[in-house]
């Protein structure tokens, strides 16, 4: 048990938490009844995926992905050791996730707008009540 903990859990702690947060988000999307709760769960699901990507780009002992000016100027004259890639975090996952966050809030807005239209039409945001009302509507026809 202790060996498993040391080999599998501790070096991958971020990845374990990403799976747990993703499970919480996925569970709420399926099982929660309220539509706004489902959307909060969906946002939590999204942050779990962001956590996976950003965790992949972390380097032990590295700094932020902004080159300091002295090292940058030295690299221009061909000083090979000026920029050490091990001391700068991997910027590619950051770029991908940065746009994903802003697109995420825009699509969250669209989903909330749909929720408001559902509330306007059915007078409720509970999934089971909405389904009952849709069913009653079909039975009338």
């Amino acid at each position: 048990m202790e060996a498993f903990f040391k080999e599998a859990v501790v070096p991958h702690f971020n990845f374990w938490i990403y799976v747990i947060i993703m499970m919480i988000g996925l569970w709420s999307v399926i099982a929660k009844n309220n539509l706004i709760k489902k959307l909060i769960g969906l946002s939590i699901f999204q942050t779990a995926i962001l956590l996976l990507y950003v965790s992949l780009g972390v380097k032990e002992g590295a700094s932020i992905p902004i080159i300091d000016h002295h090292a940058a100027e030295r690299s221009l004259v061909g000083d090979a050791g000026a920029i050490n890639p091990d001391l700068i975090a991997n910027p590619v996952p950051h770029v991908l996730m940065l746009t994903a966050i802003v697109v995420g809030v825009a699509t969250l807005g669209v989903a909330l707008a749909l929720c408001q239209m559902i509330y306007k039409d059915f007078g409720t945001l509970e999934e089971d009540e909405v389904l009952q009302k849709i069913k009653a509507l079909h039975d009338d026809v």
Partner: protein
Amino acid sequence: MIVTFDIIILVFLVIAAIISLSVKDLLAAAMVFGIYGFLICLLWAEMGAVDVAFTEATVGAGVSTVLIIATILNTRRRSTD
């Protein structure tokens, strides 16, 4: 990257996620979701992703909470689960 800080924030993150999904008052859920957004912003800053942290601070802790509250204002505040 500071491992202790990392672990503390991750544990709080899971707690905040569970609380925001389990409270029945949707306004409280939205506020805890804002706290969740701020915690994850701290996590990005800790992992060296400063640009992502900046975006998350403005979007996750700010705008998305306001949008959810604006929707709750126009719908119902109580939730059955």
